[in-house]
């Protein structure tokens, strides 16, 4: 509503918004909207629990599953609640190597989350830079970069990762690299789309007409306005990266057997599923499922909150 009507132009138009002067940035508003969304809050709490548990794994885990000297092969495939010779209770049972499953899951989460977040973050930085440059430069640079993206996106991610790991071998660093290679193109495509729109907007013209340096226009003006869709994509992609890593490990080409991730744990129990030892696959699977669902809950809520049309 217009409240300026009738006041003289020289008289200051005043503090007439009826709001306190403390003003909240769009970013802060998004955060508070996110915390007000019950499902998103559930997602955030779950993810926080997983992350904290993963970080504290060496402290809270009953056993170090990577330390072969702590394992007892005779404790293999014990059902949930069994007790070991040295008094340790296997709350959710053991796997075929005699590892405490709870400890294995905690350590596995460490790997999964590390791989998911770091690969998504690095892919985001690379992809976003390429997408921004592509949109801002336009013309031939844009055509070439986007054709590369097209080629990248036309192969299934799993296939590229398989080829990559077949060449490089196993290891956490290698799987992160493979995930970056398969994912950067999504970020590049997303940010290019929004940057193309933002570039045409009047505030960019205004910045250009004030002769601000290109670098400043690109990173201070265009980039922050392209972030909302990028954040949504990044959240979903973290979940996807974790899933992809689990898939690769399940197929036996991701991480070595000595450092089991969730995928490998599921794979280990797979052959015993039919013989009734369900827990070896079930609990790691449940952990993976909850983690992915929690991340996606946050992603969904973010998509709704950051959708520009919602502001009306």
């Amino acid at each position, binding site marked *: *509503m*217009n*409240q*300026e*009507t*009738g*006041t*003289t*132009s*020289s*008289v*200051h*138009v*005043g*503090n007439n*918004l009826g*709001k306190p*002067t403390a*003003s*909240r*940035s*769009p*970013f802060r508003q998004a955060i508070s909207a996110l915390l007000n969304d019950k499902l998103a809050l559930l997602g955030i709490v779950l993810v926080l629990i997983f992350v904290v548990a993963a970080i504290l794994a060496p402290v809270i885990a009953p056993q170090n599953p990577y330390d072969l000297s702590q394992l007892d092969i005779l404790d293999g495939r014990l059902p949930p609640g069994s007790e070991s010779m040295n008094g340790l209770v296997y709350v959710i049972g053991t796997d075929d190597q005699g590892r405490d499953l709870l400890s294995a899951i905690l350590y596995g989460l460490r790997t999964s989350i590390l791989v998911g977040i770091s690969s998504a973050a690095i892919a985001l930085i690379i992809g976003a830079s390429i997408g921004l440059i592509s949109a801002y430069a336009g013309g031939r640079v844009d055509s070439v970069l986007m054709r590369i993206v097209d080629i990248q996106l036309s192969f299934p991610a799993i296939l590229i990762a398989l080829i990559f790991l077949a060449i490089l071998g196993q290891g956490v660093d290698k799987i992160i690299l493979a995930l970056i290679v398969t994912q950067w193109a999504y970020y590049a495509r997303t940010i290019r789309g929004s940057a193309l729109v933002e570039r045409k*907007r*009047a*505030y960019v*013209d*205004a*910045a*250009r*007409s*004030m*002769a*601000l*340096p290109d670098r*400043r226009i690109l990173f*201070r*003006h265009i980039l*922050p*306005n392209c972030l909302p869709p990028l954040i949504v994509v990044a959240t979903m992609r973290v979940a996807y990266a974790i899933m992809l890593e689990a898939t690769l490990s399940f197929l036996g080409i991701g991480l070595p057997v000595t450092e089991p991730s969730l995928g490998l744990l599921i794979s280990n129990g797979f052959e015993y599923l039919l013989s009734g030892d369900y827990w070896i696959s079930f609990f790691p699977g449940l952990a993976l499922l909850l983690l992915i669902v929690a991340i996606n809950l946050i992603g969904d809520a973010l998509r709704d909150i950051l959708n520009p049309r919602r502001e009306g």
Partner: protein
Amino acid sequence: MIKPTLSISNLTTSFRVNGEWQNVVRDVSFDIGEKETVAVVGESGSGKSVTAMSIMRLLSPANSRVTGRIEFEGKNLLDLPLGDMQSIRGNRIGMIFQEPMTSLNPVLKIGQQITEVLVQHRGMSDAQAEAEAVRLLEKVRIPSARSRLNEYPMSFSGGMRQRVVIAIALACDPKLLIADEPTTALDVTIQAQILELIKTLQEEEGMSVLFITHDMGVVAEISDRTVVMYRGEAVESGTTRDIFKAAKHPYTRALLSAVPQLGSMTGTDRPLRFPQVDMATGEIQPVQQTEDTVKLNAGPILKVDDLVTRFNIKKGFLRKTVGRIHAVEGVSLELRQGETLSLVGESGCGKSTTGRSIIRLTDPTAGEIRIDGKNVLGAGKSELADIRREAQMIFQDPFESLNPRIRIGEAIAEPIIAHGLANAAEAKERVGELLERVGLSASMASRFPHEFSGGQRQRVCIARALALEPKLIIADESVSALDVSVKAQVINLMLDLQEKYGLGYLFISHDMAVVERISHRVAVMYLGEIVEVGPRRAVFENPQHEYTKRLMAAVPIADPSRRQTRRISNEEIKSPFRAADYVPSKRLYREAGEGHFVQVA
């Protein structure tokens, strides 16, 4: 007394916002008599459109509440079940919306969209419906109507589409036509055509019309009676003549005093501020005359010679150029310090492209531009940065031209720091001064753009443009998106700043009445060329070119006593698209008076 066609009493509409009910329309009552046109006028947020939506019951019942009485043909529309309402909507009451571009379905042929209504509502056979569709299109004066039935909306211009929308609204021979800002999105000559059309149709069909608009000029042209709305209330209603002659409510007076009237400047040479009305007493304060700001002895701050900007239209796999848009063609201008030169014309005439080309936001094809003597087109990157300090631009949409994620204090300080004019602490102080200079307070620097109203944002944009202490400001439709009273304030501010800093303004606008108020000199553009240029007084009092005359005749005048039946040609605005091998001819100009030039060939 004859029963009115539509009688609204105590209409109150509220919306649920964040769980609370807020009244958007409060206790509004008015009648529309038979064959009468009633205008509901108000600024944005006054509730005028919501009133129309309430009458049609188009508001979602989930988050809106309408109370009161709306009597139409003996029934209270608010009590009707939705099914019965459906048969009144589009049948007994027709409606036209603002955006002709979006109110037609783009994937259906024009003919189908009209016959659909006829078959549905009037039970006609396909053949009958088609014959009736042709009759309706002829009624809204669409030439060769039969052949156009099979065309899609995309091949119709904005004005033509609005005619089709009117034809659809008329399809069921409605008793009442509700027109919600039907001409706002249209160019002024097209607006005049549509207004004439609505007037004629009303007489032919004997309809009543409820006309919703923000434009006092349109009100004066078309309505018998007027209801003025302000913050959800009908503050004044009466015959249009009485309201314009002797408005009682202070708001109405403020609104009327802020309306620029074409012809009100006859006999004066200098720009004139808008009078301000004291909202408490309704008294009009005397207008302070502007000083003579034009510096005739110094060289021009802006000199443009033979500017040409063309856009190639490429098609096909090989990106072959199939044609060009000749957006700007051979434009020459001169602007002195302290002078306002207005570029005026309708959409697509190239006025904005001219402004953008001057500071190279769009790269021109050919020509020479000098800002304060410095060659713009030959300038390298760092020279261009210096030139852009001298010439700043203010854009049309204050909502778009501020980065939503940057606090306005930072936005204003940014150019100062980027150009190394001051360090961060000095810049902060300067931001405070600038904000106060444009009528805001220094403490607002920490706010984000979304916390300001449209007029305040435009003030922020002006403050930002002033940050680099430019000599020239290019104002591209800078006041067009503002409400009329805010527009008047921003123009007054611009005139104050011109006096204080001797700024030269290149004022780009489609609004003849505003241009008359603010300019020293005027250039009229048509299809990328300047057809007439000269001192404002000469161009407005003695227009020479055919197009200038047409433009002037089309402007609605906010004075019902000067209402006239005018003959308006049904000409469309032409397109500046040309084939790739087109060579523009050399234009000749004739001097019609001192400094007043008219294109003759």
